[in-house]
């Protein structure tokens, strides 16, 4: 036994006993003894077991035993420092390090990989659309509620009809937001028009809320000359400057660090506005998620990071995406205030986003919202999700957990909506959509010259040359080229 033994004090004795109980110090022989009273152990036996497993995996040789000896003497030194302290607990003493003071402990404990319970999910309405007793929520007027509900229906029908149009070969691609109507509409409703949206791609309801017309949606999907994007991108890649909705791009999560930059600009201009950037559960695995949240936190930028956790990234279920308790727990890692909400509860989403917006704008800080929901539709028209998930699971969420029905029940129970209005609305929207599609289909495509503009502010010589050369080729071989694009 080393010389520390001579410095006998109760505190040291207790401490050593602790250590021996943990199986950490003492003869290597005892290492497999189960721990006795380990009152000082945080996390209980598990930590001890883990330590033991770790220790058992060490190669047992003289070097290892020496290491133990060294540890003992380090412990002793610390004990000598705190010798006069009446506490057996060393936690009072603090250390100064870059980043601030931190108290230290001689108990080696690992923070558990997860809490005992998952972070609870904030909701206002139950599954039948009834207000949960004593719940905290932001009241919504009849006008607002009816508008929200109508837009949710709009979105549902728009999705159905555009999806059918793709199936009929009239547009090349589509993806729906089925199951996420509450997220789309209620989050948008809680914002002002000055708030800037950086979408992923499953948030057309935000545009719908802001007044993007069904014709404008159709024009983009058909890539005609009325498309603001000038026919350059696939369907659903909407963008609208007048609605403060940045153009969608396919790469996942790239919008998140951009959101931090945009929010920083708002901050510099002292605008009473924030940025809301959307991301799916899959997108949170991207490096840009980490970059975006960290930058927003450090720059104290007013961004709301809204994560639609719908359980699936194409065919990849959340269990294959991360091992954390969803996304809400990640906020703390960046020093970001976070909340988990029921994404299928329009009032909960509305309330949470309203509160988040206020904090973001008034306190100039980022907020993370994780909205739990379910992707009822396939990933896109290029996907058949029955190949990787159960049909009855899909049906369950489509019917029993439908956010539109749920909100409808609440709106109707307030006497603000009727079955008749429902029928009228649905048939009216459907009619408008079919008309919009017809018009969009007949509208001319953008002229060929638009292929060469906007690469730069002005076309450089190489593009001028290429356009000239291409036009010569077209005149020689017109049959190679689609006839609906004006040359």
């Amino acid at each position: 036994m080393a010389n520390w033994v001579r410095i006998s004090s109760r505190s040291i004795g207790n401490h050593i006993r602790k250590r021996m109980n943990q199986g950490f110090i003492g003869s290597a022989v005892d290492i497999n003894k189960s721990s006795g009273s380990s009152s000082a152990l945080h996390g209980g036996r598990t930590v001890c077991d883990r330590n033991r497993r770790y220790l058992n995996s060490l190669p047992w040789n003289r070097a290892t035993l020496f290491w133990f000896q060294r540890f003992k003497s380090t412990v002793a030194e610390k004990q000598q420092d705190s010798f006069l302290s009446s506490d057996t607990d060393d936690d009072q003493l603090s250390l100064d390090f870059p980043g601030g003071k931190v108290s230290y402990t001689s108990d080696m404990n690992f923070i558990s990989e997860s809490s005992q319970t998952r972070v609870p999910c904030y909701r206002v309405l139950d599954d039948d659309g009834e207000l949960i007793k004593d719940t905290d929520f932001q009241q919504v007027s009849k006008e607002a509620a009816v508008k929200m509900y109508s837009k949710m229906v709009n979105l549902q029908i728009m999705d159905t009809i555009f999806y059918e149009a793709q199936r009929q070969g009239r547009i090349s691609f589509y993806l729906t937001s089925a199951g996420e109507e509450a997220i789309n509409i209620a989050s948008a409703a809680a914002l002002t028009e000055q708030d800037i949206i950086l979408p992923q791609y499953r948030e057309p309801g935000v545009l719908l809320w802001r007044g993007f017309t069904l014709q404008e949606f159709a024009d983009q999907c058909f890539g005609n000359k009325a498309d603001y994007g000038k026919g350059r991108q696939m369907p659903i890649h909407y963008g609208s400057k007048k609605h403060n909705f940045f153009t969608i791009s396919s790469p996942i999560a790239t919008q998140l660090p951009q959101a931090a930059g945009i929010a920083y600009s708002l901050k510099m201009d002292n605008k009473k506005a924030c940025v809301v950037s959307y991301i799916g559960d899959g997108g949170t695995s991207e490096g840009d998620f980490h970059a975006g949240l960290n930058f927003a936190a450090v720059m104290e930028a007013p961004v709301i990071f809204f994560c639609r956790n719908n359980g699936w990234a194409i065919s990849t279920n959340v269990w294959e995406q991360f091992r954390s308790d969803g996304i809400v727990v990640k906020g703390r890692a960046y020093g970001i205030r976070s909340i988990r909400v029921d994404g299928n509860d329009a009032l909960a989403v509305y309330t949470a986003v309203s509160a988040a917006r206020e904090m973001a704008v008034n306190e100039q800080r980022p907020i993370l919202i994780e909205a739990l929901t379910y992707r009822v539709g396939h990933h896109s028209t290029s996907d058949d999700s029955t190949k990787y998930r159960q049909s009855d699971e899909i049906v369950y969420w489509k019917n029993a957990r439908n956010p539109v029905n749920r909100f409808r029940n609440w709106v109707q129970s307030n006497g603000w909506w009727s079955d008749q209005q429902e029928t009228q609305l649905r048939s009216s929207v459907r009619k408008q959509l079919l008309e919009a599609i017809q018009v969009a289909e007949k509208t001319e495509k953008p002229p060929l010259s638009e292929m060469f503009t906007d690469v730069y502010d002005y076309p450089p010589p190489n593009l001028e040359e290429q356009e000239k050369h291409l036009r010569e080729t077209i005149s020689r071989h017109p049959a190679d080229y689609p006839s609906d694009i004006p040359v």
Partner: protein
Amino acid sequence: MALRNIMGKRVGIGLMGSRALSTATCDVESGSAKSINLYSAINQALHVALETDPRAFVFGEDVSFGGVFRCTTGLADRFGKARVFNTPLCEQGIVGFGIGLAAMGNRAIAEIQFADYIYPAFDQIVNEAAKFRYRSGNQFNCGGLTIRAPYGAVGHGGHYHSQSPEAFFCHVPGIKVVIPRSPRQAKGLLLSCIRDPNPVVFFEPKWLYRLAVEEVPEHDYMLPLSEAEVIRQGSDITLVGWGAQLSIMEQACIEAEKDGISCELIDLKTLIPWDKETVEASVRKTGRVLISHEAPVTGGFGAEISASIVECCFLRLEAPVARVCGLDTPFPLVFEPFYMPTKNKILDAIKATVNY
């Protein structure tokens, strides 16, 4: 401009004398000029940029105290921490953040500490910045974004402090790539890049940060992008290069002169969109081309220039297009002298081309 060759030995003044032969137009008024080095010239450009535009920002790793190459000295003190600030260590974040700032009409001047570390930002540069205007139908743009990064050999940099990654970026429609050869060029070009309404990647030859010293006008001036400059006139062969390599090429030209070979030397300055017209006019005059760059020869930007010249000037060419470039290896440490396209390698190639 005082230079040292790769062994650190001081070599003759080249580019200063030949400025008189420059055919480039620039709006450099005759005013006071001071003899300063490259990092000071960059620093001056940044001071001017922030002074003249209240919506200009400078950010990146370690820029606040002045930067690892002192290019950002004095900016934080003068313009404040809200406009000049350190970012977390995350290149994709730096560029993504910069794109967002620029999209709101600001001039976002992002620094990547070494060009060797620009790759995490490649997605943001290629898929986002380069396509921002086009994909939105010109509703949005991030033209105010300028990304600056030190590039190139430094004598002891090895794999990760010596790279010349310009070729990767030259393959991306929608951005511009600009590389200055000297302090005076750097200040004027950087100001043009910052003010250009397109996202630009600006590579600064770190080798020249301290070693290149030149008279640089103290006022605000800009040099045009996408205009190559004939910095030495000649009639037997056209040499094309950019950045630090030009001074090596110029030494080769001077020696070739002694053997009666008249070399025309062109500084491309902007790699995309590049000034094909100036290069073509020169090739029509000389009938011979040699391109030199530090980056590995295969797939380097010299290949693009070579292919273009052959397309336009095949019948005029008296010899194959020569390329004297870095080798196809990761940039080595002790083998750097062997890797580099040296004056003598260039001279040998000049002679071989002329004697073809």
